[in-house]
């Protein structure tokens, strides 16, 4: 099998008000189905150690995360090498249910924006209230960033993780770099 590489080869930008970095290959599994099914909840729990999160939330623990994408979809984040194994286990556990588990790792790009001005950078790009009062750890938001679709959440203190389509990776990186350029602090957060 060919060597998997990220869209921008782990490019970084550290010369601004926040550090922008493309993260290494991240396993991502889209799981669609009725999220209230006990068998689905159990399958997610046994494969990731995490419960299916409530609406608009993300559950994370170590290398795993489960994000609520829509009323019938969750996104499972796991180590890149574990994807096929987890999908096989999900398929087996959910063989009688009307669900779909698909590997979307290579269809997406994952970015990190870190630093005390990370919220300001996000606020410049997304039509979302990202103040500390409104956007808290554990929340997961699908929206747009400038002209492309994105989903983001707080991975750690002052650290946002952003998922976008792989084909939009360069656009997203350039966008984040411009929003994080030197001297562009907003001073509102």
């Amino acid at each position, binding site marked *: 099998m060919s060597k998997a590489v990220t869209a921008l080869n782990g490019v970084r930008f550290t010369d601004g008000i926040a550090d922008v970095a493309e993260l290494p290959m991240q396993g991502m599994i889209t799981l669609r189905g009725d999220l209230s099914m006990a068998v689905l909840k159990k399958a997610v729990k046994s494969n990731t150690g995490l419960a299916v999160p409530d609406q608009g939330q993300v559950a994370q623990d170590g290398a795993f995360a489960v994000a609520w994408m*829509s009323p019938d979809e969750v996104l499972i984040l796991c180590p890149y090498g574990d994807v096929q194994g987890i999908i096989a286990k999900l398929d087996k556990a959910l063989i009688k249910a009307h669900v779909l588990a698909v590997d979307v790792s290579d269809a997406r790009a994952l970015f990190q924006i870190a630093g005390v001005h990370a919220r300001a950078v996000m606020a410049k790009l997304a039509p979302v209230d990202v103040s500390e009062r409104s956007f808290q750890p554990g929340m997961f938001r*699908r929206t747009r960033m400038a002209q492309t679709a994105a989903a983001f959440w707080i991975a750690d203190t002052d650290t946002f993780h952003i998922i976008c389509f792989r084909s939009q990776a360069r656009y997203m990186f350039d966008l984040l770099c411009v929003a994080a350029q030197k001297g562009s602090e907003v001073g509102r957060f």
Partner: protein
Amino acid sequence: MLILTCPCCGQTGEESEFHAGGEAHLTRFGPGSSDDDFENYMFMRQNPKGVHFERWRHVYGCGKWFHAARCTMTLEIFGTYPAQTLEPPPDLRAKISARRPGWSWGAVS
């Protein structure tokens, strides 16, 4: 700027996160219907100054369709409700009546 709350994912966002899908609650007249019915279904739309019901899609969010009631004059959003309904729910209609007494929209009031 319209501020919409998606009833499917509960997120509140501004209109650039959504996509308008035209008039709500159309009844389809397809093959076998009369020319008048088909013309009505195909071309005739409400164009009110005031209360209007529309379809919207949370295109950058959860991707689901839903319905919204708004005022075309003030851009006030009265409320949003699921796509799986044939007419505006009673509680929303009561809310609109409180804001716009005597309103009507097609056969709905």
